[in-house]
């Protein structure tokens, strides 16, 4: 039963979807505060390489090394995001160009590659990796075994993050303020909310999430360092935020859907099932679906109902607000 196509797809969808989920939660926080950060791919890669480096260096218990690895990844992602925040919030640079610059600076031809070769990380297995924590007998339970109990701790931590981010944005006062800043920074400013501080904090925390997303590659999914290991996951994470109508809980659903699509083509091939040009449509679906959602949310009034921040991508200048 646990070999049924659907069970395998959902289980691997959860595994492959986890980096997308972390990346999307981070981007969600930044976008809700009105900052579009196209540098997710770059931040992820720096997080991935730094997490890998940390677990190679730390001696001692595996758990300590892994926790440190994730924390270092979060910190490096946050540092990358701080560059973007400084440029777009303080210096009012174009968010699009700055985000792309961040991906070039940090990405597969930039800093992450520099660090990977300079710290001599290529072609080595990770010294410590995340494993499933539940006993093998529970992982064998029908359906819930592989899907729920066969995952690593980063997956369970991401569920906590979804609840935390969702609760924060919907139910807390600072969360409400972030949304105000993303919707109408001028009005938020008049209410006494520090627009600049909010945008900095959420962009930087968003970067930390992207760093953790990167660490899920090098510490769990494919535990080694290869240049450009994230393979475009950062861009899917950006798409995912839109696909999920800027909501944390829908990010989870979308991440697992996109993750399952990534697993679909090899699974079908292994089972000798042919559904047309499988790789073409499974790979393209996340992007096409996001375009469709973008068209839907741009219908008059729909954007506001569905949660698109009205001031996304617009710099805030008090004198000109």
């Amino acid at each position, binding site marked *: 039963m646990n070999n049924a196509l659907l069970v395998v797809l959902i289980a691997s969808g959860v595994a492959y979807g986890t980096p997308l989920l972390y990346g999307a939660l981070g981007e969600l926080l930044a976008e809700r505060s009105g900052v*579009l950060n*196209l540098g997710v791919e770059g931040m992820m890669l720096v997080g991935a390489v730094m997490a890998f480096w940390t677990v190679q260096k730390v001696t001692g218990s595996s758990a300590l090394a892994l926790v440190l690895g994730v924390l270092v990844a979060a910190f490096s992602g946050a540092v990358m995001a701080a*560059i973007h925040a400084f*440029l777009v919030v303080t*210096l*009012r*640079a*174009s968010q*699009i*160009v*700055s985000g*792309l*610059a*961040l*991906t*070039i*600076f*940090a*990405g*597969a*031809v*930039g*800093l*992450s*590659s*520099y*660090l*990977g*070769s*300079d710290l001599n990380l290529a072609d080595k297995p990770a010294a410590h990796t995340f494993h499933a924590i539940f006993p093998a007998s529970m992982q064998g339970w029908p359906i819930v075994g592989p899907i729920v109990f066969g995952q690593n701790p980063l997956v369970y931590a991401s569920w906590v993050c979804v609840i935390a981010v969702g609760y924060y944005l919907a139910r807390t006062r600072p969360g409400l303020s972030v949304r105000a800043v993303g919707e109408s920074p*001028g009005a938020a400013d008049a209410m006494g909310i520090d627009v600049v501080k909010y945008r900095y904090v959420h962009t930087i925390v968003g970067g930390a999430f992207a760093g953790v997303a990167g660490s899920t590659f090098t510490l769990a999914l494919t535990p080694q360092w290869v*240049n450009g290991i994230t393979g*475009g996951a950062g*861009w899917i994470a*950006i*798409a995912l935020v*839109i696909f999920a109508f800027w909501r944390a809980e829908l990010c989870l659903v979308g991440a697992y859907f996109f993750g399952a699509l990534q697993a679909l083509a090899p699974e079908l091939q292994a089972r000798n099932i042919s559904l047309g*040009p499988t*790789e*073409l449509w499974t*790979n*393209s679906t996340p*992007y*096409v679906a*996001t*375009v469709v959602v*973008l*068209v839907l949310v*741009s*219908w*008059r009034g729909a954007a506001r109902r569905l949660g698109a921040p009205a001031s996304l*991508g617009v710099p805030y200048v008090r*004198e*000109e*607000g």
Partner: protein
Amino acid sequence: MRLTVERRLEQPRWLGLVVPVVSVVFALLVAALVLLATGHDPLSSYRQLFDAAFLSTGSIDQTLIAATPLAFTGLAAAAAFRMRVFNIGAEGQLYLGAIVAAAAGLYLGGRGGASPGVIAAMVVAGAGGGAAWAAIPGVLRAFFRTSEILTSLMLNYVAGYLLTYLIFQSESYWRQTTGFNAKVFPTGKPLPSNAVWPPWLLHAQGGIDLPLGAGIALLAALALWVLYRRTRFGFEVQVLGDSEGAARYAGVRTRRKILAVMAISGALAGIGGASQVGDFAHALDGDPNGLQKQGYGYSGIVVAALGRYNPFAVLLIAFLIGGLDNAGNTLQGANFPSGLVGVIQGIILFSALGGELLVRHRPRVVRRASVAEATPLPGAVQ
């Protein structure tokens, strides 16, 4: 004492030149610190870099190969961004240009057409393919008010998977299906010789091959400059970029203009794709680690931003960034820190973006006392 900035009423022209130059110098200094901190000798790294980019024999040839696609995608981004249409889909438009141009070259070349005719058809086909792909986000923006930023970005990936599909996952018209190599590794069908773009030999540095595409890029830059600076169309589009409301009151047909700008931008990127096929690859390159790894479309935006969206500056910057890219590729592994080129490019761009603030704004030191004066009076318009 507090440092604030205020908007300049007039932007001094010299700053437009100083900012990029200072950005490059600043980037080289910061990267030198990074190199020092990680135990490399910055001077020797830089010497290697400039040798490989511009000085050693054959380096200019390689730099031109890297610069030509950047010139097209840079012009594509400049054509759109200048008019506040944010087409970041040059990457995908370049792929589609390559696909359609390769089809034209294979078909017309195979029928034995005269070479200039076949090449001209490839240019037109590439432009058409790029423009058609750009028209998707263009139509969505013009008729559904959907932000073209994200739609054009998403379509890049769809185009990339289509390109891979045509060569790797299907027996399409573009794929080489006969011969020994075709069974070992999937490749594109080679163009017939009358569809290959001839380079133009320059007698300097032991002979430099100037790709035909580089010449076309020069003409395209000229055409773009004339179109935006000297025609009614260019003026109307500029008004639209500054204020959509004003343009509409003035009777500008905004939908058509947005579509036209998207199509022009896409066509430029598409010719870049045609040049990839005709000038360099001589077949459609569907390898996910080939053309798609280069990221010409994204670097083009960087090139355009550094050139401040001026077509001629874009060409110059494309040459310089192309040199860096070429050096990064040539020096890979050979005792040269990998990723350095991306780091330098990133810092150049960060500082150019930061410097842009100084072009548009003037820094001013405000004394604490005057903060009270700056508080708006009740009823003042914010």
